[in-house]
C-alpha cells in the first residue's frame, strides 16, 4: 500500500503540476497531511514546493468544491481534485450559478471511500500505529501486533452508502472508474424512523438535536448552503434565535435540511463535521427519499442539465395531502 500510495500521489502530482507550473491554473485545491497519518486536510497549492505536500490517500474526506466560492474571487482559474461527492458538489454550485464551468479544471479521482479513524481504533482495540491496504482489506498495526479488517467496515458513515464514487464531471480522470455501486442501506435509518410513532420520533429528534451547539459547521461544510445571507443571520425578520431551546434547535435543523430539498448531494459533510454527532444525514435523506417517491428519481449533482425537482412541476403531480 505504501508504495502504491506513493505511486498514486505521484500520478496526481504529475497531472496537476503541468497545469499549475505551466500557468493553466492559478491555484490547485487538493489535500495535504495533517498532524497524523490519519488526517488529510485541504491544501492550497500555488508552487512546486506546495505540490510536494500533496496527499491522496484514504483520509481525504474534506469536500474541496466548497472552497471555490471564496477562491474564485481571487483567482481566474482554479484546479480542484474531485472525488465522486466533490464533483457532485461542483455541479450543484454550477446549477446555482455560484461558479462558472470555464473557471475551473476538475481532476477526477474515482474514490474507494474514506476511512474513519474511530473505526480503526475500535477494530484495533487501541491506538493504531499505521495501516496497510490490500485488495479491500486493511491491516492495522497496533502496539501489540496486527489486526485485519474488511475495508468496507472501516469506512466513514458518509461513504458507506455512496452510490456514485466516480466523479460525474471532470476534465481529466486520473484513475480508472469504479462504476456505480449498489447501495442497500441508504434509507434504512429513515425507514426505521418512519416506522415509529409521531411521539417516539419527536422524542428521538428532541434528544439528538439537544446536543446542537449552533456552531453551524454543518452549514459551513455544505455545498448546497451557498446563500450569501443565511436565514440564520437575517435580522429582520429574526428567524433564528440564539437560545438553546428545543424550539430553536428544531427551527434550525428543519429549515437547514429543507433548504436542501432536491439539492442535497448526500455527501455527508454536514454529519462528518458535526462535533456532537447529530445524525443530520437522516434529515437530508428523508427529503431525498420523499422527492424520489413523489416526483421521480433525482440525484442532485449528477447532471447539471436536469432541472432540480423543486424548481419545476407537472400539472398532474401527486401531493402529500388531500386534494379533494
Amino acid at each position, binding site marked *: 500500500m505504501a508504495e502504491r500510495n506513493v505511486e498514486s500521489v505521484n500520478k496526481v502530482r504529475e497531472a496537476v503540476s503541468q497545469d499549475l507550473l505551466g500557468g493553466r491554473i492559478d491555484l490547485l485545491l487538493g489535500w495535504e497531511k495533517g498532524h497524523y497519518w490519519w488526517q488529510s486536510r485541504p491544501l492550497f497549492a500555488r508552487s512546486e514546493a506546495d505540490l510536494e505536500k500533496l496527499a491522496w490517500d484514504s483520509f481525504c474526506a474534506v469536500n474541496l468544491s466548497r472552497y471555490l466560492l471564496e477562491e474564485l474571487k481571487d483567482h481566474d482559474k482554479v484546479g480542484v481534485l474531485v472525488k465522486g461527492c466533490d464533483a457532485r458538489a461542483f455541479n450543484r454550485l454550477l446549477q446555482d450559478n455560484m461558479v462558472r464551468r470555464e473557471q475551473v479544471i476538475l481532476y477526477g479521482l474515482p474514490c474507494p471511500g474514506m476511512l474513519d479513524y474511530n473505526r480503526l481504533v475500535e477494530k484495533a482495540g487501541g491506538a493504531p500505529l499505521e495501516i496497510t491496504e490490500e485488495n479491500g482489506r486493511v491491516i492495522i498495526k497496533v502496539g501489540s501486533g496486527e489486526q485485519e479488517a474488511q475495508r468496507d467496515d472501516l469506512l466513514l458513515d458518509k461513504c458507506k452508502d455512496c452510490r456514485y464514487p466516480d466523479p460525474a464531471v471532470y476534465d481529466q480522470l486520473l484513475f480508472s472508474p469504479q462504476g456505480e455501486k449498489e447501495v442497500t442501506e441508504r434509507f434504512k435509518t*429513515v425507514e426505521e*424512523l*418512519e416506522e415509529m410513532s*409521531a*411521539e*417516539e*420520533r*419527536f*422524542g*428521538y*429528534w*428532541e434528544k439528538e438535536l439537544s446536543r446542537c451547539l449552533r456552531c453551524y459547521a454543518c452549514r459551513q461544510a455544505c455545498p448546497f448552503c451557498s446563500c450569501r445571507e443565511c*436565514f440564520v443571520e437575517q435580522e429582520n425578520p429574526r*428567524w433564528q434565535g440564539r*437560545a438553546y*431551546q*428545543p*424550539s*430553536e434547535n*428544531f*427551527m434550525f435543523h*428543519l*429549515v437547514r*435540511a*429543507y433548504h436542501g*430539498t*432536491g439539492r442535497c448531494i448526500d455527501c455527508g459533510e454536514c454529519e462528518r463535521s458535526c462535533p456532537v454527532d447529530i445524525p443530520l444525514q437522516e*434529515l437530508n435523506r*428523508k*427529503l431525498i427519499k*420523499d*422527492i424520489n417517491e*413523489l*416526483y421521480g428519481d433525482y440525484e442532485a449533482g449528477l447532471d447539471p442539465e436536469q432541472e432540480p*425537482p*423543486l424548481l419545476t*412541476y*407537472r*400539472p398532474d*403531480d*401527486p*401531493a*402529500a*395531502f*388531500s*386534494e379533494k
Partner: protein
Amino acid sequence: MSAALNETAGGWEPLIVSFCCNWCSYAGGDLAGTSRMSYPVNVKVIRVPCSGRMNPMFVLRAFQRGADGVLVAGCHPGDCHYTSGNYQSRRRLSAFKRLVEFAGFEPERFEVRWISSSEGDKFAEEMTSITEKIKALGPNRKMRDARWQSVTSKV
C-alpha cells in the same frame, strides 16, 4: 397571536393558523362570511398573495408561538392567479409536510387544502374539520417555545 389565547383558566381551545391565498381561499372565506356560514373562531386567517408565497418558516414560527395546527389554503391546481404558484407550492409543501411529520408532528397538525373563491361552503367545512381534528389531538407542545407561554409566570 398569543399562546395565552388558547390556554386559559377555563380550559383549552385550539389555535389554528390558516394561511389563505388572496385570490381564492381568502375570497372563499369572504363568501362563507357573506353567505352567513359559520366556522370556528379558533381559526386565525393570515392572508398571503399566493400559496406559492408560503415560506415553510411561517409554519414553524406559528408552531413556536403557540399554534396547535396550521392550514395552508390555495387555489385549485390550474387556477393560480400567477399561473404556477400553487403547482410550485404543491411540491414544496408536500416535501415539507412529510418533513415535519418525520420530525414528530402528527400529520393533522399541518395541512394543505385547495379552496376556490366560489367554495364558501368548503372553506367553512375545512376550517371546522381541522379544528375538530386538532381538538381531538389536544394541545401542541412540539416546537412551542417554552418561554413564549409566559415568560415571567415561571419566576
